[in-house]
């Protein structure tokens, strides 16, 4: 009891250096927790990008390249899949649904994706969640567009705004299609996936942008006539398709079909195609990035180590300054183990407070940086209670702090009593 009181009073007396130590620990705890949280959430955001899709099919290229271009909108494939092949493959037995996608265009740097209404009913992310609408509805006519949440936020588009799609990637494209403006009819809820950064237009509209006539001419002519017609008729406007699409996603009635159809696709004669299972390829991709993950972990560990060494330095430096204080305690009757307990309690108290302040700073950090991470890195950071894993990390830091505190405590234990009797004021 008296030892705890002394520890408290003594810490208070040296508050400047104690606060400094406390903040070093607090900051390292905050860093460790933040890095770990970003690491874990990056991993889950990453694997949450797409779910419920059994197979992605595109022109033959690398597995990862196909995944990157079709799901992450990174890079692009030179070849596509012909509409004929798409129709043939998706008419096979066991195919539950399919979503054709056509990429390669952009609007102010954001990807434009041509697809069908199946996209809104079958595309899933995270834990098999469907896309949901924040405002509006799916596109129903060829000149309508549905925006990802971030596109709408960033570019400030509202329902019924008119936008123009340019051909090719990047916002410096010279080939604008001012004669074919699109109307915003829906905005999706945030998903934390590349969907947020995508403009969704009817597949039929893609060729229109490219000035393609072919099978679309028919719809194009009708477009203006049907513009003010009722909903049920507008659906007709979506009929029509391009000759080629970038890739398509498929879901099967049973997982058994996946491997079989995948084998068929990879041996498909008329065209060189590739079918990948997104979950498998996502895992492969993440393993390639695992080194980054490990470096992050290493960084956090080093940060904690440095802060604990900092605490040790401060404690040892303080100890020689406190030799007199400890000697006085010995001289008024404190036994060596009293001093040992005193120093241990002090370092434990410092680490404990450091961890508490660190956790508070950590919440402050993810609270203030969460939005930025979501919008700039696509990592959705969840503000939740500390997980067992995080509590475990804090526990490890506390234990390490306590063990490190034992070093000066042991030294204090062996301070001889004659120190206290002979030290001059």
């Amino acid at each position, binding site marked *: 009891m008296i030892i705890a009181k002394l520890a408290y009073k003594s810490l208070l007396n040296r508050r400047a250096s104690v606060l400094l130590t406390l903040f070093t620990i607090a900051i390292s705890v905050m860093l460790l927790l933040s890095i770990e949280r970003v690491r874990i959430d990056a991993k889950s955001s990453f694997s949450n990008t797409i779910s419920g899709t059994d197979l992605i099919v595109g022109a033959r290229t690398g597995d990862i390249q196909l995944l990157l271009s079709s799901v992450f909108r990174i890079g692009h494939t030179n070849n596509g899949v012909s509409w004929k092949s798409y129709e043939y493959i998706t008419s096979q037995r066991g195919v539950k649904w399919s979503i054709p996608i056509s990429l390669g265009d952009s609007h102010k740097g954001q990807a434009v994706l041509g697809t069908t209404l199946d996209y809104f009913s079958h595309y899933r992310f995270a834990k098999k969640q469907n896309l949901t609408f924040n405002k509006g509805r799916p596109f129903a006519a060829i000149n309508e567009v549905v925006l990802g949440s971030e596109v709408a936020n960033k570019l400030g588009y509202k329902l019924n705004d008119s936008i123009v799609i340019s051909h090719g990637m990047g916002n410096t494209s010279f080939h604008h299609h001012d004669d074919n403006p699109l109307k915003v009819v829906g905005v999706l809820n945030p998903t934390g996936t590349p969907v947020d950064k995508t403009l969704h237009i009817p597949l039929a509209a893609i060729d229109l942008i490219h000035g393609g006539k072919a099978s679309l001419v028919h719809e194009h002519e009708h477009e203006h006539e049907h513009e003010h017609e009722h909903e049920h008729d507008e659906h007709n406007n979506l009929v029509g398709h391009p000759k080629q699409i970038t890739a398509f996603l498929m879901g099967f009635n049973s997982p058994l079909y996946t491997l079989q159809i995948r084998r068929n696709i990879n041996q498909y004669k008329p065209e060189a195609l590739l079918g990948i299972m997104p979950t498998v390829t996502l895992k492969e991709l993440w393993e390639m990035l695992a080194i980054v993950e490990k470096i992050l972990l290493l960084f956090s560990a080093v940060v904690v180590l440095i802060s604990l060494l900092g605490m040790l330095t401060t404690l040892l430096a303080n100890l020689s300054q406190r030799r007199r204080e400890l000697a006085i305690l010995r001289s008024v*009757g404190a036994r060596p183990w009293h001093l040992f307990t005193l120093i241990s309690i002090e370092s434990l108290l410092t680490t404990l407070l450091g961890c508490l302040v660190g956790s508070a700073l950590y919440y402050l950090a993810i609270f203030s940086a969460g939005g930025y991470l979501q919008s700039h890195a696509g990592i959705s950071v969840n503000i939740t209670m500390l997980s067992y894993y995080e509590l475990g990390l804090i526990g490890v830091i506390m234990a390490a702090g306590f063990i490190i505190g034992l070093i000066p405590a042991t030294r204090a234990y062996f301070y001889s009593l*004659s120190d206290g009797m002979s030290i001059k*004021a």
Partner: protein
Amino acid sequence: MINLKNVTFKWHKNDSSPTLNIKELVIEKGERIFLYGPSGSGKSTLLAILAGINTVTSGEVLILNKNLSTLSNTTRDAFRADHIGYIFQNFNLLPYLTPIENITLGCEFSKIRKQKILKQSSNKSAALQNEAIRLLNALGLTAQYHNKNVAELSIGEQQRVAAARAFIGSPELIIADEPTSALDTNNRESFIKLLFEQAKLSNSTLVFVSHDETLKPLFNRSIDLINLQEQV
């Protein structure tokens, strides 16, 4: 009370002559002893032996009929905390505690001394505090200083706090190591008289050490360390 026989003490095994060489020293219970000698005469060494901080090289040291040299380090620590109050030359007060807290610290590490106070008091929770206040008042430090910062006290005030800490819990032996060296003659005498009063009240034996022989007449017995030491 104190009984030294054929005591020698060497700081290092290989020292040619001992720092201390005392054939016999007997101090009775309740005595107020003035122990004097010039610097280097071995005063501090003798005190360290009386307080059980250092153990003798040869001979016998009996304090309260306990042979200190036969006790283990921890039992000697406990014995010292329980039975000896020590007033240091430099007072040894903790700067971050108030005078009252510094004084009660003297019995926080000794059950026996704590018990002595609690026995006499009806108000158990404030017993230590009240005893500290009583001692401070008795030693002439008024209430306004009781909860001040120790570092703000003058030397004379700190000295009274240090003395009160030694007296709390009425230990059988009080050792004062030149506590008056920083005071002028008048204050010295009045302070020593206050010490006598307290020693009488708490039934303690007082060993007062100084190099200043002018204080000699105040004590009922004085010991010259030079004479005490056997010349080798």
